[in-house]
């Protein structure tokens, strides 16, 4: 703590290394950055924070010279790099969100990628071997053969290689774009140590992150972005969850969720998972889904909730265990793959529209009704599509969901993200499902569309169907989800139901701060019990300001007063805090 303060004093007077003024960047019609300004000084750890799609990664790419800007000015150490090669010569090193390594090459080559001149090596071969061995030892804590092929190494090590590559350059500006995503807890600590070392040497360390807890611990200053603009700079003492969230969301959230969540009427089980393991070695879980309920699924990024909903939808098989669904006559049938799931009327709607949702070059109509083609066709094996029937369905669904579009044969890409998502949800509804599994469907859609979506899902559940809803925006669950399941380390950690559904406590559970039904099942065999215990037990007493690196049981110390002030935290599956368009 004392150290931090000392550095802050120094940083105030240190020269500005990065200065970005009024920068805009467009991708076609979308504005990634819209007049964004920010500056960072030498010898500080500067965080860039913001919701999903606020342009923070774009900003990192612009500073690294990957993307050219459309308007504005920026200079780093007095220069304006336009390619990554130029930024490297200036002394900028960037670790990108994606793990960019060359699988076919050795660890050493990957570490020194780009450091050599065109024809001659920068340093001698033996030096390289030595450096890479020590660097990897230092970073990973284990011995890595510098000649090992990177393709044969696990992902965590690959991530370290990208970080090591940046560190080996002794950068004047180090940019880490979500670089701790693939790292485990110990590794993150080592990374932080490294970052502090660099800062003490006068390097500007720029971190782009969604992990608010980490950010609070490590950063000296933070710039908050929203909708492509900078909305505020926080000094070390001001960096709190409350301040960050206020800036990120723009305004205090109004508590408009006065609705009560739908409840199962007849308590009939429609889906049953037993001894289900999300990953090999993770804690097995049992799960019953009742008719007429909306089950919310939450968890920090990479804690298995995403896999869990995929397993429920039949998209990926569980590591072990069984999944059964009740068919219309009440018998339980196993779900082993996607076609089983489709047969038993389970549909899956992904929030990752671009990757596993829309068909870019095809029309709105086709995008919505593609899965129905094989049901609604005539002439037997000739399979001629029954356009008339489908047209009626299309009309009904678009009217239900109030999708705005020009002509039904327009390409799906002519719609906004929210409307595209509606089309996909319409696709799900058109299949007349009994269970609809939604994987963060609200990602990047505006508030109006979101509330419509909730309305439709609520109506759907009230008609006796079931909804599985994974979301990273915790406040979405309030007044909407019957139960909320919180995942941690690949297992079910905690279950909240009805009035216990509360963004604050879900967040605590996500960070492992509550007892957690999943932590020791002997004491808390059932989720409900866990919730009760939780109510009686207060959050860990750590009295405020301690943000020191002392850790027990891999749980992060979470200051009580901060938690008390949390209104909303939004995480999507990436763990990125979510963008709230239109607020």
């Amino acid at each position, binding site marked *: 703590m004392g150290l931090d303060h000392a550095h802050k004093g120094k940083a105030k007077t240190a020269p500005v290394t990065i200065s970005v003024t009024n920068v805009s960047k467009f991708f076609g019609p979308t504005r990634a950055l819209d007049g964004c300004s920010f500056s960072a000084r030498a010898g500080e750890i500067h965080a860039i924070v913001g919701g999903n799609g606020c342009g923070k990664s774009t900003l990192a790419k612009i500073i690294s010279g990957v993307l050219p800007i459309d308007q504005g000015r920026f200079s780093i150490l007095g220069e304006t790099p336009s390619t990554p090669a130029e930024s490297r010569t200036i002394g900028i090193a960037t670790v*990108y969100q994606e793990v960019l390594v060359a699988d076919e090459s050795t660890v050493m080559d990957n570490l020194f990628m780009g450091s050599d001149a065109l024809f001659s090596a920068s340093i001698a071969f033996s030096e390289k071997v030595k450096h890479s061995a020590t660097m990897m030892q230092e970073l990973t804590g284990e011995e890595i053969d510098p000649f090992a092929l990177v393709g044969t190494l696990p992902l965590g090590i690959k991530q370290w290689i990208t970080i090591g590559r940046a560190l080996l350059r002794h950068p004047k500006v180090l940019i880490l774009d979500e670089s701790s995503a693939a790292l485990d807890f110990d590794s993150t600590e080592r990374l932080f140590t490294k970052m502090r070392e660099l800062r003490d040497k006068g390097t500007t360390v720029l971190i782009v992150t969604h992990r608010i807890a980490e950010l609070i611990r490590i950063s000296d200053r933070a710039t908050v972005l929203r909708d492509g603009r900078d909305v505020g700079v926080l000094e070390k003492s001001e960096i709190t969850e409350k301040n960050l969230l206020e800036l990120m969301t723009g305004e205090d959230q109004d508590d408009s969720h006065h609705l009560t969540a739908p409840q199962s009427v007849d308590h009939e089980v429609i889906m049953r998972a037993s001894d289900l393991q999300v990953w090999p070695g993770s804690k097995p879980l049992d799960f019953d889904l009742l008719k007429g309920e909306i089950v919310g699924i939450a968890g920090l990024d990479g804690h298995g909730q995403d896999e869990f909903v995929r397993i429920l939808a039949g998209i990926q098989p569980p590591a072990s265990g069984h999944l059964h669904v009740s068919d219309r006559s009440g018998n339980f049938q196993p779900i082993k793959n996607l076609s089983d799931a489709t047969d038993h009327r389970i549909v899956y709607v992904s929030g990752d529209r671009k990757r596993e949702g829309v068909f*870019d070059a095809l029309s709105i109509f086709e995008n919505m009704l593609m899965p129905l083609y094989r049901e609604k*066709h005539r002439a037997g094996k000739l399979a001629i*599509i029954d356009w008339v029937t489908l047209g009626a369905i299309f009309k009904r669904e678009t009217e239900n969901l109030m999708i705005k579009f020009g002509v039904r044969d327009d390409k799906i890409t002519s719609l906004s993200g929210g409307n595209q998502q509606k089309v996909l949800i319409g696709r799900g509804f058109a299949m007349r499902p009994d269970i609809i599994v939604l994987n963060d469907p609200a990602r990047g859609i505006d508030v109006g569309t979101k509330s419509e979506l909730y309305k439709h899902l609520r109506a759907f559940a009230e008609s006796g169907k079931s909804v599985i809803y994974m979301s990273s925006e915790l406040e979405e669950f309030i007044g909407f989800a019957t139960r909320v399941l919180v995942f941690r380390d690949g297992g079910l950690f905690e279950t909240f139901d009805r009035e216990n559904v509360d963004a604050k406590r879900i967040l605590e559970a996500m960070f492992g701060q509550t007892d957690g039904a999943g932590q020791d099942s002997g004491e808390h065999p059932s989720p409900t019990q866990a919730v009760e215990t939780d109510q009686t037990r207060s959050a860990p007493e750590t009295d405020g300001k301690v943000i020191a690196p002392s850790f027990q049981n891999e749980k992060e110390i979470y200051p009580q007063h901060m938690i008390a002030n949390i209104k909303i935290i939004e995480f999507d599956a990436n763990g990125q805090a979510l963008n709230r368009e239109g607020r």
Partner: protein
Amino acid sequence: MNVPVADMQNGNLLAKLIGLVLAIGLTAIGVVLGFVQGLPAQQVILYAVATFALSAWAWKFYLQQFHTQNSAAREEDGPGELRQAWEKYRLGVLGFVILLAGFLILSLTVEGFFNVWNVVSGLILLAIIVLTITVGKFVSENKSAFIGLMVLIGLFTIGAMNIEGFASAVNIKSILLFAAFLGLACVGQTLVSLLGGLDLSIPFVIGSANVGLLYMISLGVPPWLAVILILLLGAIIGAINGILSFRLQGQALILTLGTGFAISGGTQIITSIGTAYSGNVFGTVPKWLSNLSAMNGVTFGLPFPPVIAIWALVAIVLIVGMRNTVYGRYLYALGVNRTSARRISISERVYWVAMYSLSGLFSALTGALLLGWSGGGFIGVGDPYLFMTLAAVVVGGTSLLGGVGGYGFTVIGVLVLQVLTSFLVGIGLNFEWQQFIFGILILPMVALYARSPHIRTQI
């Protein structure tokens, strides 16, 4: 709209002047060359007037289409007027100059190039280009088909004017006949590239089917059965291609090249064991098969070979089917986005293998029909189809990355290629030159429809 009216008029005047100079230049060149060639004076005058009128009209048209907007939005304190004019009409002027230069060079190098028909066809070419650019601005969907059609019309008109007998019934029939063969061979290539693959085994399968069919017939297998067997074998070979390349989609091209070589080698080994003529098989082609694809074939009493009808039928079935059947739509779905398609239970493997086996089937069919045309088995009969199928698909506008295009486009591509071939033959260029031209042609076409994204956007 705060631009002074005078300025606008000024700009327009300048534009008109440029057009006038161009037209006069063109006419002057025409006149000079005409006299040099010793044409009658009346003719020279006539063409001069025609040239002048046409180019003036084309320029005016160009102005109307392109520059009404721009001239309205002119800035007042820009660079000098001449420079501004140059900036604005750069494209048009450059195009004119290039065309003019090309025409001049050809006129000076090729003897007898400067004649009436060439001048007129040059102007028609000009008109078509202008028309394509203008109308093309309003066509956003299926642009490639539109451009293809325009090229087809242009080529045909010019061909008809310049080449004796180009527009005759016989020539059209022969163009259609070869287009039918090519079109049938392209079915597989189109389907496969809609999935993002490529099939280079097509020419080898065609050759093998061609030789194999005659071999079977000469062995005493009833011709109808032999044809069915060959089609079946083709489909099986295609399926093998599909199965082998499914896991190696990136290398489908190389892999099918390999299987193609193996197949054609294998067929020849089988068919030429015990004979002295390697590569050729001799035998009698049944009459009905000859009738199917010979130039003088008769379809239900009508004087055109049935293969054209077969192709038309296949084309209609495919075009309608791709639009209106589940299979067709799912094929597009897979081509556009594999992951999305998998999420709605469309099996990529089934479609991949099915499309490759259809490719094999249609290659075999083409081979069998070519036997009817040539009357003798020859393994090399498929060789031109190696590049022709690919060129036709690409020229038609089907993206090699998958999901965009269709057989209708390929039909246009096929017709363009065949008319172009006929044209090239007509002006005396042989097969080698055609191959060269087609090879060069593929690049700009792919560049138009299937460019890869810049690396900056992929991070």
